[in-house]
């Protein structure tokens, strides 16, 4: 199926314009605003269906390309196009946004129209990030996307929302500024912002190292990696449920996406020589963060820390290829690692999103996220309990759920590089299960903890729909991940050829 209309632009701007429209409808007609928001997010999801179906999975080239001059003085172009790496992330974005809007349907009481508008605008901007093929355009979307998130946390957040927002801002801004410097530097050398031109640009080792570190600052914060991760637990705790879902499901993926789109192909030699940094921090993350997650008393913090540990697999999978070449002399396994990293990102989007929604369901009822305030929830909410156990099992990487696929692939790849990489990474089997099941034991199982728990009502139809759709997605990816990996494979193979090619 050929698509003759600018589908990526529509996917980017339709939600943004609808968001503006929803805001204009205002708080007087919340019902209209809500339905408008839902319909436009559904429209975006519907558009991603032909996007997926007409995507040529045999090709690594950019597809659905749109290219026009944008700022001629800067040689910046409005250049959109996606490969197999971007496609699943875009679909994840449109999918998550629909769920977030349904999940916030009646829960948000304060300025609901603006709430929905923020999510729609953010959706468009995030699609923009994933489809931009021009460095400056990418940067604009990248920075702009943060604004709705600041607003979501700052307006609809919890008690310490200001602290969390500042922290979030400081971290991400510091990283982004350095990235901009790197982009400008390369623009000055190539005379264009086209990413493909950056890929071709020969760079000396000192140049590459500086550029790599600039990108690293931006992406490591986003992922986030130890030790620049402490903004995430605070941001999650303070964010409203929908904010947490998008933060976990999509925003963290920006970091991984950045490594794949920028660091590896633009600075291959520096990536190779500094891979120990990324791999070391990833492995430290898996163990260190796993242990920290174990002792959390706030459900959201626990899931936030578990996110960081899971994202350690993403960064490990991204960079392990260099060590595979170093130890075996062949690139066999590098694609497996990258593919595992991507699957892990998608899966984490589904699973952590679902877990945050679960916490949201409880929070909406009892207005606390403390683990100690619950206990025996399954007595009052059997359906919810079943969902929660399922998502927790997926979080612990049970085969048959999406959580297993990426971890398994990355462990297989890591073993090729070094037995001990696989050894440390595989400790997540134990640690991940430990903090997740202990959470289940304390919250879901047991005698009814208190009167509050006894009074809980099971999920309503709307909540059931959201959790049910996610459950199906989690199981589908776990049982049959081939459609996903087929989309990824050619683009990742191409990426491997770029990341293994010396530029000095």
């Amino acid at each position, binding site marked *: 199926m050929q698509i003759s209309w600018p589908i990526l632009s529509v996917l980017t701007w339709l939600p943004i314009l609808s968001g503006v429209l929803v805001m204009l409808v205002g708080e007087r007609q919340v019902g209209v605003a809500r339905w408008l928001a839902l319909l436009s997010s559904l429209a975006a999801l519907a558009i991603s269906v032909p996007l997926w179906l007409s995507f040529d999975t045999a090709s690594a080239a950019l597809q659905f390309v749109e290219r026009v001059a944008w*700022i001629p003085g*800067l040689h910046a172009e409005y250049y959109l196009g996606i490969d197999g790496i971007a496609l699943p992330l875009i679909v994840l974005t449109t999918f998550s946004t629909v769920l977030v809007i349904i999940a916030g349907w009646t829960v948000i009481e304060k300025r609901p129209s603006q709430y929905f508008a923020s999510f729609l605008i953010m959706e468009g901007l995030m699609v923009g990030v994933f489809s931009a093929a021009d460095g400056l355009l990418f940067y*604009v979307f990248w*920075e702009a996307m*943060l*604004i709705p998130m*600041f*607003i979501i946390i700052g*307006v609809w957040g919890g008690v310490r929302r*200001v602290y969390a*927002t*500042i*922290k979030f801002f*400081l971290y991400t801004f510091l990283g982004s500024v350095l990235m*901009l410097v790197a982009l*400008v530097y390369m623009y000055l050398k190539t005379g264009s912002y086209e990413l493909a031109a950056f890929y071709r640009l020969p760079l000396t080792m000192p140049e590459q190292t500086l550029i790599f570190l600039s990108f690293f600052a931006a992406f490591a914060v986003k992922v986030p990696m130890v*030790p*620049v991760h*402490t903004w995430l637990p605070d941001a999650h705790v303070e964010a409203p449920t929908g904010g947490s879902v998008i933060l976990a499901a999509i925003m963290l993926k920006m970091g991984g996406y950045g490594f794949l789109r920028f660091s590896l192909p633009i600075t291959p030699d520096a990536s190779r020589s500094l891979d120990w940094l990324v791999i070391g921090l990833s492995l430290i993350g898996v163990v260190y963060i796993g*242990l*920290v*997650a*174990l*002792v959390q008393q706030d459900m959201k913090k626990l899931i936030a820390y578990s996110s960081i540990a899971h994202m350690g697999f993403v960064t490990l999978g991204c960079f392990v290829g260099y060590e595979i070449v170093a130890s075996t002399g062949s690139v066999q396994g*590098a*694609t*497996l690692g990258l*593919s*595992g990293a991507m699957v892990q990102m998608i899966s984490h989007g589904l699973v952590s999103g679902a877990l945050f929604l679960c916490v949201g369901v409880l929070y909406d009822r009892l207005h606390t996220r403390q683990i100690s305030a619950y206990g*025996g929830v*399954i*007595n009052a909410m059997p359906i919810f309990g079943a969902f929660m156990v399922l998502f927790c099992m997926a979080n612990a990487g049970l*085969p*048959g759920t999406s959580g297993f696929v990426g971890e398994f*692939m990355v462990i*297989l790849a890591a*073993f*090729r590089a070094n*037995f001990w990489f696989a050894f440390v990474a*595989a*400790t997540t*089997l*134990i640690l991940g*299960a*430990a903090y997740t*099941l202990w959470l*289940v*034991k304390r919250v*879901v*199982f*047991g*005698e009814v903890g208190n009167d509050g728990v006894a009074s809980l009502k099971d999920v309503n139809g709307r909540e059931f729909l959201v959790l049910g759709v996610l459950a199906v997605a989690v199981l589908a990816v776990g049982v*049959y*991940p*081939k459609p*996903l*990996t*087929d989309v*990824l*494979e050619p683009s990742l193979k191409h990426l491997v050829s770029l990341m293994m090619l010396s530029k000095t």
Partner: protein
Amino acid sequence: MYIAVVLAPLIASILAGLLGRVIGRVGAHSVTILGVAVSFVLSALIFKGQAFDGQPPFNGAVYTWLVSDGITMQIGFLIDHLTTLMMVVVTFVSLMVHIYTIGYMHDDPGYQRFFAYISLFTFAMLMLVMSNNFLQLFFGWEAVGLVSYLLIGFWYTRPTAIFANMKAFLVNRVGDFGFVLGIAGIVYLTGSLDYQTVFGMKQAMAQHSFALFEGQPFNAMTVICICLFIGAMGKSAQVPLHVWLPDSMEGPTPISALIHAATMVTAGIFMVARMSPLFELSDTARSFVLIIGATTALFMGFLGIVNNDIKRVVAYSTLSQLGYMTVALGVSAYGAGIFHLMTHAFFKALLFLAAGSVIMAMHHEQDMRQMGGLRKYLPITYATSLIGSLALIGFPGFSGFFSKDALIEAVGESHLNGAGYAYFCVLAGVFVTALYSFRMIFMTFHGPERMDQHTREHLHESPWVVTVPLILLAIPSVLIGWVTVGPLLFGGYFDGAIVVAPEHDVLKEMGANFEGPVQFILEAFRAPALYLAAAGVLSAYVLYLVKPEMPAKIRARVEPLYRVLDNKYGFDWFNEHVIAAGSRSLGKLFWTIGDETLIDGALVNGSARAVEWTSALVRHVQSGYLYHYAFAMIMGLAALLAYLLFHT
């Protein structure tokens, strides 16, 4: 047809689980029993086809799970003689347990849920044994673990149950940790997850070595096999990963029979037998297997002697018998291990279900000190328990006799490092087995009636849904050894499915002297095992019936030793106080010192304060805080762009 075997219980489970309220209790048990019955009948037909009609093994893919980097991961079945045997055992025991459950869970509010779980378990276990690749093996492996988790914690309001199920899952995960590394090693060396491809490359694999430590190469096959076996240690509860199994008795009794005796816990044994082509290539790994198994066989048996909970005694007996099977694997007598697995599945499921019948009669009292003299109230339960116990201790002619005797003899024939120790353990274990088994029989069914008046008045035999499965399990517990000892051990039934290097083939050496079951029994009178078993029964008779005051005296004499046994060698203490508490303190330390003090306190908030200080002018506009930052960022961006625009 093969797909139907696994799908029937899966579909039944989904129906009972999701539509439990709609189809009701009768609907739930009917649909799941039907599903498992279909599975059993088909398994039996497949078994007949291969074992008697000479149909060739089947090996084929169902669908491709994913393809990445040249590695094709598929879901598929390998149906050979080893598989069909397991399929029949699993589905038969499962069917018996399904029927039994109607009686046992009769008054439980979670009736439909229970049937959904045990059907789901049957599906997962079948996926495990029917797999033709490591991926699906691992899927089944973890899926049975999940259902076991759900079933141990079935009564989820009990604190002990939800502690036990978490413990079971986590300890199993320690095993799976090794298992995954083993699988990763195999994929590294062969680029495949498919059994056939991997086994085809075993010689090349054995040439490899992994430099785990600087300059110290380890044989690849040894590393891989030990990693895989660590997985088996978790699932099949071998020391020191056995700690979850006794606690798993918190679950309802039918699952103790199905999962924690007959099927799931034997998955590790099955897996090692399935991987026999690999294990044959590493003597070191098999020595490791042998020593772990022997230690489990003897030392877990001791614990059965000091426990007073009827289910836990049977659980320790299971641990010990799993140790026996593991020992068989260690000495390359895989056939004997699987043979014992099969006989054990019947008589141990029987013993558990009989214990459940006793527990029902006793109004959910499990302490044997409150029982006694039950044989006149529960005649069928008594008779079947006795049969199960006789099979367990290896009474000549009963199923357990053939399997255990063959196993012990195989250990005696082996020359592997550690075989001497193992031979001692398995022989001493025979005495211990007989002692704890008949201690249980005597304390429960004989002697004075120690229960209270109320319980005694209500004692009665269980309903037919309970006793019929007992009888149906008692039949193979007695007879199955007669018919199968020849073909399974010495008749080459497992040829092609299990590979044994000729120089390790102890069963073949024994087979040279085998002239049928009768002669096999007569031979046994010349070996020590039989007399040790008799001594064990006699000791139990003296200690618990003739002079019941003796055990207390003995205990007082060997107080320190008793303490050690009563504390189960301190494994639980160590896990709780050192490993679990240690991880928590470490986590707390990382969190408070690492995250909160170092990163947040010094770095982040330090810079935040600096920013706050410099932006003091902006700060008094409290509500505009956020927008200011966002605004400043956009303005900054615009300024930068403008600069570039004019600059170029």
